[in-house]
């Protein structure tokens, strides 16, 4: 919110300087985001006219200019390029006070200069073109004090307003805060203090639960009410565009001044005339001030005349009852509406206004008569013939102030302080001088502080009053054991392992487009959809981390990289009941490894076995981890090109090659992309989060040497290594059977392959004899021959 220093300081006796005022607001939680000097503060500058321009005899870039100040013509030296004969310009005579100090008589390159043609910067003006001299409007009166053309010097403060600070939304209200917290004396605005009968236009509140007070002042003879220049200037400084009509501008002015939104109806345009504050009924509509046809929802609070709605209460007035230049009789509305009702109307109608902003945050119910009287006073001042003919103040509900019982012990207990009773009482009295001694104090909450409801709120005021630094930084809270969640522990372990294996962790967005879903072979009707996305590119929640990783792959390939190893841990979403969100870990590899090769040897192309090896490393030592052929892998894997991972009984996701159509649809040039994804949840159930559980029991190793033998067999290609490997279980003393080589080609019959395996034997009791090992190797070969028709390779 913008605040003018000249305006706010008018409400404070002996106000602090702008910088101090800003600092004091900050200290009590009203953050001043910007303090800016505005307007002009020069003297001795008048409107002059350029009569003649000659070349300077001794300088190419300077000119000799004759300036007429309305009385005489003077010669000045000027270096600006944008001068022209006939221009009106700000002319500073010797002795003028400018932004850089007092103007002295000068002799420039041998010629006397009797004054200066000023630029905006020399006048201390901001927001003007500063590339040359400041050219004044053609209708500026020659010889007049140039100050009259510009707003006076002032400061604007941009104050950040938090949603609970409804009590601070005006100049007066902020001045009041400063007075409460720093002991300044508050000054009041001049208001119309006269009386008028409470009769004439009936004002009926039909929905007292939504309208707590309605003050109306009827004025006659207001035709031609012009906005005075001082008011227009302040409104401009506030960023509001004054219309020149005091009935409109004055209402805005009082809102900025006191925080109470006002509205003026042209009484001649109201049917009845009458004011009915009621809920809208089905089918009603009205034309708003900005000329839009607004269909009202039943239940919305409106201000209606005898026949139809004339305003959406607290949000916007209607065009048909709006004041204009010809308006002679007005009704000033100053009301207090139920904040949620105004917010609801504002949201439903899609209209936000300065008025709804204030009503939503809760206006002071005691303020309505004062604000209406303030506007009436301003109009009376400007239009001598105007008269107040009616003053009505309807209060359907009693304004019972809320009372908080304050005990200093409670305040100190909450803050952890030992503030003396007297200091706490002094704070309460700053708000409410009538607080009586005698504990617990009965603190009658001022009507403008609708936000203070209980002891915590009072404690905050005490802390603000004394300063948050009064709270010590000490604690005697007991230590407590701490731990992380299982899914965090698993994620952290996987992240570290993947990073140490060469993968870079990425953070992708959770949102994606229908097109991307389709490209990855995913159905948009099964994906969770945002009701209010930022754009159609960000419309769905990702059902898998795949699209984001593929986009990241593409992004990096487009930037000259040819090898990528990335992963992410994040949420995948679904519409399926109970599976709305699941944490997933996914990653991919693409390209050559090592990237760019190495002088000792070429790089290997990424393939399935590399990623499979990574998976084996991730889950090394996790009991029961294994790969299985999946019944159905997700469709974005190449058919038959993926394995399912299992840990215990549960599925641990998939690892495999990306399908060619998905790669093509995601604009990737081939599908040499190997991808894995695994649900953290199922990993977490098999994972032991506690270190004592996780620590593997170490098996003793044999004190005797192990013995190994190689075996090469030829068998039909259809037999897979996984089957062979399982067949070796049960061979006595077998420590490991490792595949050393797979060969097809020369000397191997068509449709066959040769496998070379290394069998290692070890016994805990003794060194095995040659004969024993030979016998066990025979058993292995026997199994291979029986089960797979394998023959010893000769």
């Amino acid at each position, binding site marked *: 919110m913008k605040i003018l220093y000249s305006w706010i300081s008018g409400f404070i006796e002996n106000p602090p300087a702008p910088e101090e005022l800003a600092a004091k607001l900050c200290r009590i939680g009203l953050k001043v985001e910007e303090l800016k000097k505005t307007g002009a503060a020069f003297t001795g500058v008048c409107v002059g006219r350029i009569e003649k321009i000659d070349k300077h005899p001794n300088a190419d870039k300077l000119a000799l200019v004759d300036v007429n100040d309305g009385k005489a013509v003077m010669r000045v030296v000027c270096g600006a390029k944008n001068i022209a004969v006939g221009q009106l310009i700000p002319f500073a005579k010797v002795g003028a006070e400018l932004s850089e100090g007092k103007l002295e008589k000068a002799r420039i390159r041998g010629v006397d200069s009797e004054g200066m043609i000023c630029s905006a910067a020399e006048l201390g003006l901001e927001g003007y073109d500063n590339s040359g001299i400041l050219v004044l409007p053609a209708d500026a009166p020659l010889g007049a004090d140039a100050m009259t053309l510009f707003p006076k010097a002032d400061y604007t403060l941009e104050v950040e307003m938090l949603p609970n600070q409804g009590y601070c939304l005006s100049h007066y209200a902020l001045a009041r805060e400063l007075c409460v917290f720093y002991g300044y004396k508050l000054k009041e605005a001049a208001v119309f203090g006269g009386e008028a009968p409470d009769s004439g236009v009936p004002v009926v509140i039909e929905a007292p639960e939504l309208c707590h007070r309605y003050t109306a002042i009827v004025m006659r003879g207001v035709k031609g009410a012009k906005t005075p220049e001082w008011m227009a200037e302040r409104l401009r400084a506030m960023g509001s565009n004054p219309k020149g009509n005091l009935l409109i501008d004055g209402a805005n002015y009082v809102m900025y001044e006191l925080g109470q939104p006002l509205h003026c109806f042209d009484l001649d345009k109201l049917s009845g005339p009458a004011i009915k504050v009621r809920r809208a009924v089905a089918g009603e509509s009205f034309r708003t001030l900005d000329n839009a046809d607004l269909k009202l929802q039943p239940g919305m609070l409106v201000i209606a005349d005898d026949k139809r709605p004339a305003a959406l209460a607290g949000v916007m007035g209607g065009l048909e009852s709006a004041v204009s230049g010809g308006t002679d009789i007005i009704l000033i509305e100053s009301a207090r509406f139920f904040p949620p009702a105004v917010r609801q109307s504002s949201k439903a109608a899609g209209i936000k206004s300065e008025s709804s902003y204030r009503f939503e945050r809760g206006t002071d119910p005691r303020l309505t008569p004062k604000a209406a009287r303030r506007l009436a006073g301003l109009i009376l001042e400007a239009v001598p013939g105007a008269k107040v003919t009616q003053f009505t103040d309807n209060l359907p509900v009693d304004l019972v102030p809320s009372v908080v019982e304050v005990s200093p012990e409670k305040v100190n207990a909450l803050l952890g302080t030992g503030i003396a009773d007297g200091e706490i009482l002094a704070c309460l009295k700053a708000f409410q001088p009538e607080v009586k001694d005698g504990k617990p104090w009965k603190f009658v909450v001022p009507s403008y502080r609708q936000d203070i409801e209980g002891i915590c709120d009072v404690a905050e005021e005490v802390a603000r009053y004394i300063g948050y*630094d009064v709270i010590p930084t000490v604690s005697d809270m007991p230590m407590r054991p701490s731990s*992380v969640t299982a899914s965090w522990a698993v994620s952290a372990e996987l992240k570290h392992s993947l*990073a140490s294996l060469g993968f870079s962790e990425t953070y992708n967005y959770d949102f994606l487009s229908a097109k991307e879903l389709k490209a990855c072979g995913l159905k948009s009707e099964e994906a969770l959809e945002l009701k209010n996305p930022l754009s159609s590119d960000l419309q769905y929640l990702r059902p898998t981390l795949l699209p984001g990783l593929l986009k990241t792959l593409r992004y990096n390939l487009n930037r000259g990289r040819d090898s990528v190893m990335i992963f992410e841990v994040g949420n995948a979403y679904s519409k399926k009941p109970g599976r709305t969100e699941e944490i997933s870990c996914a990653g991919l590899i693409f390209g050559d490894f090592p990237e760019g090769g190495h002088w000792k040897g070429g790089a290997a192309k990424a393939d399935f076995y590399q990623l499979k090896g990574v998976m084996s490393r991730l889950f090394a030592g996790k009991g029961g981890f294994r790969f299985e052929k999946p019944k159905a892998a997700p469709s974005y894997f190449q058919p038959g090109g993926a394995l399912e991972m299992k840990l215990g009984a549960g599925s641990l996701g998939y690892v495999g090659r990306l399908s060619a159509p998905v790669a093509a649809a995601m604009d990737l040039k081939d599908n040499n992309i190997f991808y894995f994804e695994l649900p953290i949840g199922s990993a977490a159930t098999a994972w032991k989060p506690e270190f004592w559980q996780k620590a593997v029991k170490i098996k003793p190793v044999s004190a005797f040497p192990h013995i190994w033998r190689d075996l090469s067999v030829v068998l039909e290609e259809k037999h897979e290594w996984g089957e062979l490997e399982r067949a070796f279980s049960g061979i006595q003393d077998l420590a490991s059977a490792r595949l050393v080589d797979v060969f097809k080609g020369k000397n191997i019959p068509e449709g066959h392959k040769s496998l070379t395996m290394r069998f290692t034997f070890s016994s805990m009791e003794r060194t095995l004899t040659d004969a024993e090992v030979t016998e066990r190797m025979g058993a292995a070969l026997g199994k291979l021959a029986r089960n797979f028709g394998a023959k010893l390779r000769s």
Partner: protein
Amino acid sequence: MNATVWKEKLSAVRDSFSVSIAQKPAVNPEELELRFLGRKGELALLLRDLKDIPLEERKPLGALGNAAKTEMEARLAGLKGAAGLSGPVVKADLDLTLPGVPFPKGSLHPLTHTMNRLTEAFLKLGFTMADGPLVEDDYHNFEALNFPPYHPARDMQDTFYVDLKDAAGKELLLRTHTSNTQIRAMENQDPPIRVFHPGRVFRNEAVDASHSFTFHQIEGLYIDAGVSMADLKWTVDTFMKDLFGTAVKTRFNPSYFPFVEPGAEVDMSCVFCKAGGDRCPVCKGTGWLEMMGAGMVHPNVLKACKYDPAKWSGFAFGAGIERFAMLLYGISDMRMLYENDLRVLKQVH
């Protein structure tokens, strides 16, 4: 050559070696080794000359030569400081400056590093990690946290809604802050409770250098009998000192979050200021950095979770993880954290 000449030559070589090895500054032992003991070294050449000397004289000369060699080797080894364990000099064509084998280098994301460190700081203070969903209902994200329906505080957090409804028929939303886990934690366990939660949150805001529709928060909650704002200040101060060193100072300024009262904003003294703090680009010369929000848990929040506010009190504090990461890694545009450019990511180990 006769035996006498050879002996003279040998003693000349030995003298020359002694002079060279005693030279200051010290000569490179490899160079000396090459010059005297190398294949074409002075001693080697001299030993080769033995073939011209009659056999009967050769034997004692050979012994002399070998003794000299052993002595020189021992002195050289002494010079190398490794008393003879060095073994022979490497071949001259071995270029040790060739690049090492490039083991693949991965990386953790800056936000993960930051989140891990913040998590560690919470754990040290006895906070246990709690969990909560990202797709949340209005009650846990707003209402129980003292954001009543049609309250302007809801404007602080523009919300994404999804096409799913909760049991009450209200649209589900993407949580706008991690504070939903406060409610979830209090619903799940009786006081006292000391929990924290890091995670992703969403706001319906356009992306720019300092805003994103997706970001991360971390926050802690402590409820017990007699918890005061002094406890909060100590906890926050200790937390920040753990992260930025014991010289760091913290200060509280009044602020507002619906779920706490009194509410505060926490500033930390700028640790990035070099001398001449006026020009510090990080704190803009103010000496302070806004780091966190904090406050005493609002009684309405306690009531919503069936904790009796007359019996229990507590505090909550939290921060945006991106804010910490951007300060720590010197990132000025938040979008960089979600671009996933490997040239950027691989700089962080």
